[in-house]
């Protein structure tokens, strides 16, 4: 089978982001999603550090140290953008005004729990940033991740073994193998993304039972 690459996963997420959506993209793969939103589709990107309407990366030499995103990378601002302080920014998140956030994860559970901030190792320096706020506050939480660990274990699990970031909040998972919805009654396969991967094979890799309404 042929798994999706990082940019292909990002492009797949981008397909599901409608015009007019207010979207927060996490650091790493989620940030790539911005590159795949069609130029004629207006999507308004939010960053935790107090900005709405993020535009493309600045050209080299045009960076402004006062204009960065939550990953501390230089960005630009679109016409129509705005600045605000941290409490207002997280008010937007916590108050349910962000339509979609896209997060990376170590694990996602069948009940929508997400673990993405801590490996669970005792001596690891913990760092959470805005992940718990986004998990708890965004209307929809999309997760992007590789489907399997390096050891071949599914990162979609019955119950997370890593420390949780949020409970019952993930609505959709995009992996290098598939797109899966998390609903009250469990996992629903939306589509298989890896070329040559059958439902039965995916089900076996996934561990947790997948529902699949084929021809819809």
């Amino acid at each position, binding site marked *: 089978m042929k798994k999706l690459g990082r940019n292909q996963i990002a492009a797949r997420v981008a397909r599901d982001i409608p015009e007019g959506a207010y979207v927060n993209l996490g650091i790493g793969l989620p940030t790539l999603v911005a590159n795949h939103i069609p130029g004629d589709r207006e999507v*308004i990107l*939010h960053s935790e550090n107090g900005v709405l309407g993020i535009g493309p990366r600045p050209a080299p030499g045009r960076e402004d140290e006062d204009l960065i995103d939550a990953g501390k990378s230089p960005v630009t*601002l679109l016409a*129509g953008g*705005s600045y*605000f302080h941290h*409490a207002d920014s997280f008010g*937007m998140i*916590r108050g349910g*005004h962000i339509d979609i956030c896209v997060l990376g994860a170590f694990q996602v559970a069948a009940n929508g729990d997400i673990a993405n901030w801590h490996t669970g190792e005792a001596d690891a320096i913990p760092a959470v940033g805005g992940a718990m706020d986004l998990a708890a506050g965004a209307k929809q939480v999309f997760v992007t991740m590789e489907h399997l660990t390096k050891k071949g274990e599914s990162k979609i699990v019955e119950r997370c073994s890593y420390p949780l970031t949020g409970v019952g909040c993930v609505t959709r998972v995009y992996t290098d193998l598939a797109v899966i919805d998390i609903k009250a009654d469990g996992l629903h396969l939306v589509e298989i993304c890896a070329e040559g991967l059958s439902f039965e094979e995916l089900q076996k890799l996934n561990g947790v039972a997948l529902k699949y309404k084929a021809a819809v």
Partner: protein
Amino acid sequence: MIDKILDSPAAALAEVPDGATILIGGFGNAGMPSALLDALIAQGARNLTVVNNNAGNADAGLAALIAAKRVSKILCSFPRQTDSWHFDKAWRAGELELELVPQGTLAERLRAAGAGVGAFYTPTAFGTRLAEGKETRHINGRDYVLEYPIHGDYALIKADRADRWGNLAYRKTARNFGPIMAAAAKCTVAQVRQIVALGAIDPEHVVTPGIFVQRVVKVPALEGAA
């Protein structure tokens, strides 16, 4: 293309259902969305819960909504005015429930709704009649009252300028409840004096980012003053 601008107050309020909670901006005449209130009266929704600092003045706007018997409950801080006769009459007749809320608690409950805060402890009103029956708590040497958010189905507010993304800038003390009501409602409708091009409001000066605004209607100053 995102375009939150609608043609008329009537179009912006067409779907308001009976029983809706309506947050109405303004403090005195400053920031009062008169054209939206006129449209709400014409639209006909009944059994409304209304949130405003006052309870209507003279015979127009919120007072007219009350006179038309559309309001079943009002949350406000200061209903009694020399010209609040429509409220006074309806309240004395028992046609309308009043929840009296200290002004700062009203503001903070709206802010909590917009910011996803489930409840908060405020020192305001502790030990008074307005805290009777409410949960209290002693925190770090002070006494507080537990208060809950006020969510709106609609917010009707007035701003000075808007762009097609719904970014708003206000004028002087007409800002008052606008920004916090915008964030506290599912559907915020802003009556503005002027529509400007995207980017014409400096990003440093946007007071209400468009994320909190669903609909914008231009109402020229003369009409707004009606």
